């Protein structure tokens, strides 16, 4: 019997029993849709996590002096960092950017047009790089500016809009607490993941030295002090290793004895993000396992109905054998039936799964992605179920004795 005839035979037998076919396929449809949905949720979550883990915020460490430490007999009070600390950290392998900054929130900024409150920071050239910011006009602060304590600033585009209207601000004067600086460049506001509280898009950046000397003031204990350090690792860098090296540099620089607690703190969002990613991965495996189980149950349903079908059609099988059907003809007839039902249900299940993933695109909590790999995997599993669970009934049919089969009631 030709494969096409066999397929036609299988199809007509499914069509002759529409309700049974529908009910049987339901198990596989749900199974495939579940496997597809679960895998694509898993994949979506994975991509989301990867995106998070490669973002600037998740690759960053922020180092602060531990201001909560009290003076005791064993420990000195905490004190700010030095500019040289930043330079040492910048040289660690896998560090993309390291920047030290001084900060003064709620500073009054004014031009001829008006005034506003903004965040004023003393920074080095790495600062913009570490915040994922881009220059919109003019130039970034340079090391020469720091050396010369130049009275220049870079402003955020928010400041440009408010205080310069439509003018090109480059080279124009701007007053910070009534002290005059010259605008050197305009840049975007920093990554929103790094919070500055209010005034989220109002920023003025000056070279560390000029900010210290002209606005913020020096520190009695540390020359050229820095209030906080931000470190960004390369994508895929060894973050624990970087953190360890930062600790070595800091302990040496701050003269902390071996075994003594540090007087600074390193903040990293990476830890909880990695834990989060891991638990999401576990959840998606769990869901995929559930999908696989429903597929399995669907497969058992197919086997059950095929066994019933073989029993019901025993006389038909005997007749076909008497008419010259070979064992292989009978075998392929029933196998084709099981496969066809699984393939069709698999396709419908895929459609349902895809529909679900389209709906989920609008939702924030669930991220599903369409990938042909996942589609193939879930469809393939339906096919596999068809072969595995169709085999036993088909073999039983092919092994029937024609004489007994013809006598079957």
């Amino acid at each position: 019997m030709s494969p096409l005839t066999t397929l036609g035979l299988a199809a007509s037998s499914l069509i002759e029993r529409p309700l049974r076919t529908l009910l049987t396929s339901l198990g596989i449809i749900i199974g495939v849709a579940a496997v597809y949905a679960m895998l694509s949720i898993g994949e979506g979550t994975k991509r989301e996590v990867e995106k998070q883990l490669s973002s600037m915020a998740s690759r960053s460490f922020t180092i602060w002096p531990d201001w909560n430490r009290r003076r005791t007999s064993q420990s000195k009070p905490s004190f700010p960092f030095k500019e040289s600390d930043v330079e040492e950290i910048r040289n660690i392998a896998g560090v993309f950017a390291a920047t030290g900054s001084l900060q003064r929130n709620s500073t009054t900024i004014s031009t001829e047009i008006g005034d506003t409150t903004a965040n004023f920071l003393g920074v080095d050239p790495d600062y913009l790089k570490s915040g994922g910011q881009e220059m919109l006009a003019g130039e970034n602060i340079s090391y020469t500016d720091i050396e010369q304590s130049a009275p220049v600033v870079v402003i955020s585009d928010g400041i440009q809009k408010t205080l310069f209207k439509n003018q090109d601000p480059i080279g124009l004067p701007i007053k910070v607490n009534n002290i005059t600086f010259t605008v050197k460049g305009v840049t975007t506001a920093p990554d929103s993941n790094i919070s500055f509280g209010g005034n989220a898009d109002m920023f003025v950046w000056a070279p560390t030295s000029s900010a210290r000397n002209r606005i913020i003031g020096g520190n009695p204990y540390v020359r050229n002090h820095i209030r906080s350090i931000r470190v960004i690792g390369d994508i895929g860098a060894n973050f624990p290793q970087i953190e360890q090296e930062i600790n070595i540099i800091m302990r040496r620089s701050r003269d902390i004895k071996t075994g003594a607690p540090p007087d600074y703190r390193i903040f990293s969002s990476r830890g909880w993000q990695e834990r989060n990613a891991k638990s999401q991965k576990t959840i998606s495996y769990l869901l995929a396992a559930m999908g696989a189980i429903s597929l399995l149950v669907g497969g058992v349903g197919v086997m059950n109905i095929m066994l019933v079908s073989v029993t019901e059609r025993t006389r038909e099988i005997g007749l076909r054998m008497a008419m010259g059907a070979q064992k292989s003809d009978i075998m392929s007839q029933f196998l084709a039936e099981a496969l066809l039902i699984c393939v069709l249900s698999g396709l419908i299940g895929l459609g349902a799964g895809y529909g679900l993933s389209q709906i989920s695109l609008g939702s924030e909590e669930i991220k599903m992605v369409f990938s042909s790999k996942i589609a193939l995997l879930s469809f393939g599993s339906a096919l596999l179920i068809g072969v595995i669970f169709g085999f036993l009934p088909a073999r039983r049919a092919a092994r029937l004795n024609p004489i007994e089969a013809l006598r079957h009631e």
Partner: protein
Amino acid sequence: MKLPLIKCNDLTKVYKMGQSEVYALNGVSLEITKGEFVAIIGSSGSGKSTLMNMLGGLDKPSSGEIRINGENLSTMSGKKLAQFRNVTIGFVFQQFQLLPKKTAHKNVSLPLQYRRPKPDNIDASVKKGLEMVGLADRAAHRPTELSGGQQQRVAIARALVGNPQVLLADEPTGALDSKTSEAIMTLLQDLNRQGITIIVITHEDEVAAYAERVIEFRDGEIISDHIKKAA
């Protein structure tokens, strides 16, 4: 002297039932020539169906050999036997054995679906088959829409459609009334006149009367074998 189409030599069939053995056939030797119309009679359990299943390649003897067209059925592989059934034999059953959800046309085409290589004029052959049994106008009907006699005629058309050399009918009139039985037997007689060898199992003497040769079985053995004088 014509060469025998079917030649059975000392056939036995033994069924083991626990300790005891049942001889369904006990040393049957038989020759049937091409073109004969044979009736096999005998009481219930005498081995008629057992012999017929062996002639049709559905069963194998415990000992002895069957040759049809010189080929030994007892040593054929399952695959060869299936092909043999398809090409050489046409079966007619007491219970018709039609597929209830298929039309008469589909039912008749069944043997041709298993023919290798696939014949390219299946529809024409099926039409011809249905014409031979006088049911050309019922091709699209399902078995439930046909009378018993019509169903058996569809079954006969199915047995004939592959141009077999032998038609084996196990009580073909067993489920029919006497008038319909007559019609079926007349049909078989016509077919026999066109050259096909026919072997019919029956309980009824009226049915056996249509045959040229009557073989009687008792307890797995042939007890008589009469050939009627040609008219």
